[in-house]
């Protein structure tokens, strides 16, 4: 009902196989004020009260079949919750939502992350666990598609999204309103059978089963006949698109390949600023301390210069690598640059990914000496000249070494 949603769908990229559009459709939530804000809820509550009042007036003289309305409301909630759970389940089943931390992030101190990023990375370092969580979400969503198993799916999702809501608050992950919305949907669906379950399990009494059977008129029968296959197609298509995105170009990291063979962590052995050599320093604002080349076209540099943190969540759908800021959002310590690569003229053109520092750019040439040394020369946006000798450090990470064998590092 919110026109901005349609504008967004129409104006932004569809993603390969329509993945972006499908995911957004699966997770529509009214954004009258701002996305994921409780302000919307006030407006919706107002509309609901007005609607209830109006309905009361209109139906004063004829009695409405509330049982049936309630039935259709649950149908709506079921499918709405099901597609949301399936879509979020899929991006965990194919670990897209919380991708493995980038190498630059592994070289960032624990205290230099915003809480949401710690939460994401902590889940991401155990892909089997993320896959399991996605599996639970997906399965519960599928249970909602059948009326008879709805209570089980809704019960699991009430606990699941309740927990997501709690962690959203604890780590300020930005989806407080949406996760509470999904929790409420699940609770409303679960409530239908809850008194019966209470009577059976807690009161331990003989329990009368649900006896409401909807009788459909012709129009409703047609609606069901059309809607069911459509939803099935939607879900299957979403699954294929999510799998395709995962296997080809996971949407949170840039797609373009980085400098061939450069992936790694580099010490900056020699550094010159305007032809003046600056020795190792952890306090000099201009001196590069170390550099990380990612597998994709991102390079991050550690300097002592303060960074205004990108408060985004890095979860927007975009085909523009520079705007894919998951690796650089919510984290300090390093300056992240997307780069365009000219392998013929050995040129790197760097642009800071942080919108608070977007003025920062470098025009560089590079020279590879052997497999472990890269010489970089060039200028920044203010024409300060830079020279750096990067030496790859082949170090081990305790995160990869694990706890099962003796480790020295």
């Amino acid at each position, binding site marked *: 009902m919110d026109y901005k949603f349609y504008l967004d769908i129409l104006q932004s990229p569809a993603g390969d196989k329509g993945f972006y559009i499908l995911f957004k459709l699966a997770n529509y939530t009214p954004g009258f004020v701002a996305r994921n804000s409780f302000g919307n809820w006030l407006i919706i509550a107002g509309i609901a009260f007005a609607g209830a009042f109006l309905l009361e007036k209109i139906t004063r003289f004829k009695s409405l079949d509330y049982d049936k309305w309630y039935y259709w409301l649950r149908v709506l909630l079921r499918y709405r919750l099901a597609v949301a759970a399936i879509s979020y389940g899929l991006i965990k089943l194919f670990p897209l939502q919380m991708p493995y931390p980038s*190498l630059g992030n592994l070289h960032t101190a624990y205290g230099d992350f915003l809480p949401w990023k710690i939460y994401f990375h902590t889940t991401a370092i155990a892909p089997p*666990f993320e896959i399991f969580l996605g599996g639970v979400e997906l399965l519960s969503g599928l249970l909602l598609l059948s009326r008879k198993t709805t209570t089980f799916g809704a019960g699991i999702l009430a606990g699941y999204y309740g927990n997501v809501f*709690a962690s959203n608050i604890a780590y300020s992950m930005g989806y407080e309103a949406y996760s509470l919305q999904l929790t409420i949907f699940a609770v409303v669906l679960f409530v239908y059978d809850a008194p019966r379950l209470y009577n059976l*399990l807690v009161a331990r*009494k003989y*329990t009368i089963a649900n006896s409401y059977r909807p009788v459909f008129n012709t129009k409703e029968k047609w609606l069901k006949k059309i809607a069911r296959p459509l939803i099935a197609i939607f879900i299957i298509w979403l699954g294929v698109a999510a799998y395709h995105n995962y296997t080809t170009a996971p949407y949170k990291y840039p797609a373009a390949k980085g400098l061939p063979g450069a992936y790694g962590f580099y010490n900056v052995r020699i550094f010159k600023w305007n032809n003046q050599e600056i020795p*190792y320093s952890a306090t000099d604002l201009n001196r590069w301390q170390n550099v990380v080349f990612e597998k994709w076209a991102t390079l991050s540099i550690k300097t002592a210069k303060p960074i205004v*943190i990108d408060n985004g969540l890095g979860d927007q759908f975009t085909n523009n690598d520079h705007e894919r800021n998951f690796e650089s959002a919510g984290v300090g310590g390093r300056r992240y640059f997307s780069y365009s690569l000219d392998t013929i003229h050995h040129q790197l053109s760097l642009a800071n990914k942080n919108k608070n520092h977007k003025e920062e750019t470098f025009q560089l040439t590079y020279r590879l000496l052997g497999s472990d040394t890269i010489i970089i020369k060039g200028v920044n946006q203010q024409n300060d000249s830079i020279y750096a000798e990067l030496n790859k450090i082949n170090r081990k990470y305790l995160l990869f070494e*694990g706890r099962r064998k003796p480790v020295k590092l």
Partner: protein
Amino acid sequence: MKEDVNLLNYNAMTTGNEINYTGSGVWSPSQKFVFRICFVFFLIMIIPTDAKYYQKWVTTDWKHLHIRDMGSLSGSSFKIIEVATKRPGGNDTGGAPEKKQYDYVIYPETGEYGAWSYINWFIALVLGVAGAFIWTFLDRKSKNYNQLYYFLEVLVSYAMIVRLQGLTFSKIFPSQMPELALTQLNTPFGDFVAQKLYWIQFSFVHNFERYAGYAELVIMVTLFFRPTRAIGAALSIAMIGVIALANHTYDGGIHLLASFYIVGGAFVLWRYLPPIWNLIVHEKNTALKIVYYPFSRPWEKWFRIAFKSFIFLFFFVVSAYLHWDNYRNDSYKVPQNPGLADARGLYTVADFKVNDTVVPYSPVDSLRWQDVTLEKWSTLSFTVFNTFDIHGEAGRGKQYKDIDRTYESAGTGGGRRHFYYEIDSINKILTLKNKNKVYEKQVLQLHYERPNENEILLNGNNEYGQPISMVLIKRPKQYLVYQDRSRKNTWTP
């Protein structure tokens, strides 16, 4: 409405009251056999066979009861074969510091985390099957085991309560995941082992830790009462079962403890499932056909009340009190001796000398210290560019001595070193001892001077006996992990 003919047998249909199902039904031979296996299996898994456990009830110092005692009084897991690893510091699965010795020890390639760690469960199951055969041979008269079934369900439920209380109350009073140490805040993400990252994600959001604790308390309470037992069992599987899987994927080390809630929860929930399915999926009128032991004789009634009261008082009330007391006075994973007064902070190292020669700052020097941190308690940490043997402990357990309390240092690498220190404030000397047990012989003596509140001069010897000296300069540092995403945040080194 279609009526279920069977249900006409119960007076409940007419009165609507609780059914006094007599359970006079006859079980099929296979049902009886499976029950016998379960009975023997759970008995072996739950009832401690170790005489020392029972001695504990006598030898415990009741006047000075400690959360350590709660651990050893809440049972011991069935263990014939110790599954261990030979790497230094492995085998740290938490619990009390003193370790029992086992006659049979195996060292599988997957360490304590793989399928081999379930070997004792497998033995219990084999014994269960063997026991079931013998039982079948001896007992040909029993038509059903309705009453035994009830008692076994109670036993399993209470075992789950008793094993959970420590974890519950050390989250409600956040000491299972205590506050982050400064050294952890200054260690790169990739230099932690996965288990450590899983743990410390709670260490800066204590309300979330409390929330998890209250959720576990809900499990304990619902398992405690008969009417809510099915709900408790379902929650056990959903929550502690997920924790079991997490422990497997993060190599957390307490997967055996947690997995018990999958098996135990499933066992308790099992007989509620057919009625639930019948009511919800088939939409048929349903009653639970569950036999409860009537406790009709007075002594039975009193025994039940006394037993329940004891469990509640000891494993809920006393345990909660002890954990609260521990949290307030001696949070068990955090060293308690105070460090240098007002020195807590992150320090830049300047003027570093080895053998009286200045070593300028370099990120790739194996001797020069970088990023020194001093905690509130007496731990000093620093980074050097070097590799060290990692001691595999998890930083768990209820250790007595500060030097053994390694939550802050266990599971970290990347050239970061952690030293416990003692202060001689008269001669102004710090005696530092390496907290990594591989290097426990390393002792440093450093004379300290504090010319002003932001500087500390150190002068003494390093781990290799070389004379060193340096100036530590305090660095004002705000950590993003404590900041609010909706504000403007600026990172500084």
